[in-house]
């Protein structure tokens, strides 16, 4: 169980990255959504004990992560949003190196897991090639592999599927959904459908604040029956915006599909749809911006 209480962080340049975050994360996949600069990466780095918060506490199974960072590191698998690799070092060697750093000093089991992970992420045949020569997708898969080294009780993955093609994405998502059964997996992504499909819990961050938290279905139920859609001419969007609360607009075949939040039918041509996470996300974020 990961328990976050009144977590705040302000950078030296004055940016308030986190503002009193309170969060309870249990076993399973926990999705973090939020616009760019919302504080998702800061929150993840802080949980990973890579930086100290200004205020607040983070407890992992009752142990204070800020005071005892080594405890979280002993149980952590971390895939940062951006990372690099040592030049000229093969995937197998680098993974072995990281495995030893994570305390996998038993040679046989370490090698087995390294081979297994390379196989799982589809890099087995290129394991002797330098990771620095990998393409973006291959490198991301390597990053996933290193995050899964050992037996991480807390897995923090920041934009893990960025750069992956659909097939790779599904493979990864299947892998971590399997892992998420008995451990905490913190997943940050912009692909909201991933959270809908995988996460048992989710939260939306914006401007360093936690806007909403809960199970996706539960959160979506609050919008149930209130989301309406209509395909209109692009010139009409502005008029609709002025009358209704528009959640999103999307260009389709030269015309605009508009999602509107309204308790009853907003007008002619609108049809009721089941809300999705995107609707929820836009609803919450715009509500916050309006405030």
């Amino acid at each position: 169980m990961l328990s976050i209480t009144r977590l705040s962080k302000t950078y030296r340049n004055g940016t308030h990255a986190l503002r009193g975050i309170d969060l309870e994360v249990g076993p399973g996949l926990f999705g973090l959504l939020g616009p760019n600069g919302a504080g998702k990466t800061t929150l993840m780095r802080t949980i990973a004990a890579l930086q100290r918060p200004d205020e607040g506490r983070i407890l992992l199974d009752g142990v204070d992560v800020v005071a005892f960072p080594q405890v979280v590191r002993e149980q952590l698998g971390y895939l940062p949003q951006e990372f690099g690799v040592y030049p000229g070092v093969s995937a197998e060697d680098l993974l072995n190196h990281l495995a030893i750093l994570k305390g996998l000093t038993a040679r046989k089991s370490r090698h087995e897991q390294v081979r297994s992970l390379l196989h799982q992420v589809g890099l087995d045949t290129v394991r002797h090639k330098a990771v620095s020569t990998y393409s973006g997708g291959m490198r991301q898969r390597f990053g996933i592999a290193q995050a899964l080294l050992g037996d991480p009780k807390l897995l923090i993955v920041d934009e893990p599927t960025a750069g992956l093609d659909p097939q790779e994405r599904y493979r990864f998502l299947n892998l971590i959904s399997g892992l998420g059964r008995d451990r905490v997996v913190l997943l940050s992504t912009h692909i909201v459908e991933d959270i809908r499909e995988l996460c048992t819990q989710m939260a939306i961050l914006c401007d360093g604040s936690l806007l909403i938290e809960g199970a996706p279905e539960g959160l979506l139920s609050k919008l149930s029956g209130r989301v309406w859609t209509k395909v209109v001419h692009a010139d009409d969007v502005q008029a609709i915006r002025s009358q209704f609360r528009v959640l999103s607009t999307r260009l389709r075949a030269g015309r605009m599909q508009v999602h509107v939040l309204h308790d009853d039918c907003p007008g002619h041509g609108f049809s009721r749809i089941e809300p999705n996470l995107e609707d929820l996300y836009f609803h919450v974020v715009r509500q916050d911006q309006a405030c």
Partner: protein
Amino acid sequence: MLMHLIGFEIRWCAKQWVFRISLVVFLLLGVVLSVAPFGAGGHINAPIGIAMGLALLSLNGLFSVTLLAAQGALRDRDTRMEPLIFATPVSRFDYLVSRFVGLVACSLLAILPAAVGLVVGHLWLSDRSLMGPVIVSPYLWAVWVLMIPNIFMCCSVLFASAIATRNALTTYIIGVALYIAYWAASMMADSPLMAQSSPYAPSDTHPAILFEPFGIIGILDAVRFWTVEQKDQWLIPMTTPLLLNRLLWMGLSLSLFAFTYRGFGFRDVEGTKRRRQQQDDTWDRPGSLAWQAVARQAMGLRRDFWQILTCVRMSLRCLSRGPAFYLMALLWLFFCAVTLSDQMRGGVFNQSVFLDTPQILNVLFEPMVKLGALVVIFFSAECFWLDRQHGMHAWIFSSGLRAWSHVIAHIVTVVMVCLGWVVGTFFIGWAFHVAFGDRAWHWLAGWMFLFQSLIPLVAVGLMTLSLQNLVPNKYAGMFLSLTFVVLFTGVIVSRLPGMDHPWWRMVWVGDFHYDSMTQSTYVGWDFLMHAIYTGGLVLTALVVAGVCWQHGSFKLGKPVLAWGLSGVSAIMIIIGAVCVLGPWNPEMDTKSGRLDWLERHERTWSAEKDRPVPSIRAVSLDLKIQAHRYLCQGEYKVWNNTNEPISEALVSVPLGLRLVTLTSAQADTTVMGPYRRITWDPPLNPNAEATIKFEVAESMSGLRPGNPERYVVGGTAYLEMDKVLPVFGYRSSWSIKNAKERQKRGLPVIDDDCDERGAEDRFQLSARITANHHFQAIAPGTCVERFVSGNQVTFVYQSNAPIPFSFAVAVAKYQEHRSWFGDKEVVLYTHDHEHVDDILRGAVDALTYCESEFGPYPQPRLVIAQIPAFSSSFAATAYPGLIFLVSDKALQLKDNDGRLNYRMMAHEVSHQWWGKMVEPAPCKGASMLTETLAEYTQMVIAEKRYGPEVTTQYQQLMDPLYFSWRGYDEEPEPPLNRVERQAYVAYFKGSHAMYQLRDMLGESRINGVLRDYAMRFAHPSYPRADDLLDLFRQEVATVDEHRFEALFTTVTTYQLNLKSAVTERTESGWTTEMNVDIQVIGPLQNEAELYELRLVDGDGRIMAESQAEWGPGSHTLNVQSHSRPDIAELDPRLMKLEADRSDNSVAVANR
């Protein structure tokens, strides 16, 4: 557009830490330079001092330029801005020119403040008494001719490297390569800045002048034969080699920029990692292997060990990959090869030396440590930033790796880098030995080499890690580390008045001075004490870095750890300070402290100098030599040989020694400052005797600078006993000799012709010397007894006749060689086996010649003994019946034909007459009566053995040495008959003078005069130089009195120039017209003198010789020859003392 870009570059650069630190550091260095100049003994603002100082600062500016170039030229790549910048429509011209101009402008702005600091210092901070008039032209000259071209050259070379390779490491390596080019050229040219330099012919130095990128060799070459007075007054001329050097490197710089411009494109460089990235994604079939959790090992030492190991392995792997690493290794190999080749070539009088372990390791040590510091700084910084630079830090820091494991991994990596550097260098030396070596390899020396160099390098590396942890920028950290090395290794700080204390030099232990006789370095294992001290300093730095955590690498999270480590470091510093700095005398180990002490001593005690003192009649010594100390118990029998009673006298031992006891049955002793006062009650009446017992002890510290006249290393000893035993009376040597310094401190001028105390009386010596039983003791006189007790052996020596107070003893492991001179024995004790025959032959030949020409040899035997190379201040020294030869200047010289050892023996043996049999009065000119006459004697003896041509060859070596050495003498040069400590006058000019005198008088007339002199002035007559000159004057009055006076009583040199020689056929053969220009520098310059001219053919055969009597000015002479000459020569037999003889011969042209 271009101006905007240039402005942006300058503004960007001005914000960089490297620029700001450089600006401040170079400004301060300029100020420091103004009070601690790189002069040549004259004014501190002499043009050559200004030029040398600023040139050397521009050389050091190379490091700033390297960092600025790497930052400026590669910043797009480092910040991943390249795609954005390259996709803009900026032109190649605007992009490259703005970057380059920005780099040059910022480099100039960062480094030129050194000149400003120098001017400021000279105007307001420098000691006025040490300065000449302040004029602006030398500063402008140095800035315009040296600094600006050097900075421009560095910028273009490094900019081109950075742009061409897009690799910071390669750029650094190129920077180091430029530095190595300077060092290599300095060695090729035997730069005076290098140790053991000896002058070469100008034609030999020209390639090095051109090759050296910074023009420093060029300016040294331009003033190589200037006197100190000339250096103070004259602006450095733009000589042809110097001009060519400047033009060559400026041209090369511009060409490099043009080449870079031509080759640059707004694309990724072929072969870089981005191009090499796989374009097609690989994706294996879904795997059948299932992921299985693997439990981490519990935290503990075993896990830490594996984590440290993998970090070290990965760091070393990343640091050592790529062409830059191999390029650096090749550069180092090249540098070692140049250094060792130079060592094989050079030595005393350009004689090559046996290439063995001491020679190889001694010569590699200094550049290895100093260049190694740069390498270690670079790799330590790279190691520290490795994770961040490659974006791996998040993984590493979140992996569970403990902070202290990470720190230890960094430290181990740095140690491994240092170890690799040192071991690599050791094996380069070993490989060189395998290829070219002459003797067995001493593996023990390797261990000493390893430890003595490893400790300072590791200290620099760990200090770099600490500094990197404190600063936000790798380059700033590297620059701070460089500054640390420059400041705290004695290079800069110790040059400041009052700051030349060994505290400031404690990062380096000292030179690696391994000697094969002692099988040890001078430092020996004392450096382990130094290691504790340095370790304490470094640990302190690490603790500070850990407390002031910046980058997540070092973090002393627990105060108890910080306090604990602080305590450990404090204890180490205290232990180290006690052991390492204990032997130092804080008052006497700085120049200013020493001068203050000498001034106080003179003011306090000089009134005592007229007080009569007793004379020593007999000395009985019991000298015990241990591994690193000696104890000397002795007894003086003294008597009052004055006409008045002596009631009290001062007694002292040299500074640094401990006078343990001083007792006399007839007198009381009291301690008075540096003296003991001994009081006789009743007073010692004239001719009365007394006995004084004493005990002197000294423990050697390998960490103090070596004393070439007094050392015990591993049981091997050489002790000049006049520097050990107590002496009576006021010590006039404890006074300031420098006239300027005396004037500054208001001390009276010393204008005494003679030492006021007069010559020492001679005495009988009885000496018991006890050493380890493997050793042999050598002392003056005859060994009358030798006995072994336990593992000690004792030798009892009795002098054959009264000896002067100046005598020495040696203890070492020796082999004995014998020869005979009549019925007298010549015994040679050596450690090395080479040149034994040459030495014995030289000794016997010299004894035979001197006895037949100057009088009988007064001793029953002659003993010659080898002593270690630690006696670096002389090559050989003679005492009555005893001669000591220094290893690396005699037996260890390759000296293929043995002539140098032969000459050296002849010189030293002749001192048995010139110095011992005839002991000169301790007055000015005394060296002429010893060294000059010994030079003459060895010249004629060598000529008889090897033929007359060797004399000319010898003079060809002596004359340049004279001109080279005189350029570093602060005092005005005395003529021969007034020479004091100036070896270049007594030896080199003396040799020339006697060569000419023999040409004037002939050998038999000279020897006749010397025989007469030896008879008249045999001990105890104490002759002066003019006594001998008067004898010669009677002979030369009929020959060339003017020439004689010019040689012996004036300082006269010549500048001859054979401007042209044209020939035409005549009825009687060929007539060659030679045009000559003559300048005479000296008081007798208006006199006419004889000059020799010669015509030779292409094979060097003499076709015609002629003489002309000319005064100064231009002259023409026609010389007849039977066939057409090819070359005309002026003064071919080196009869005139001339610095630059390169214009004394020309090819003969047709009229």
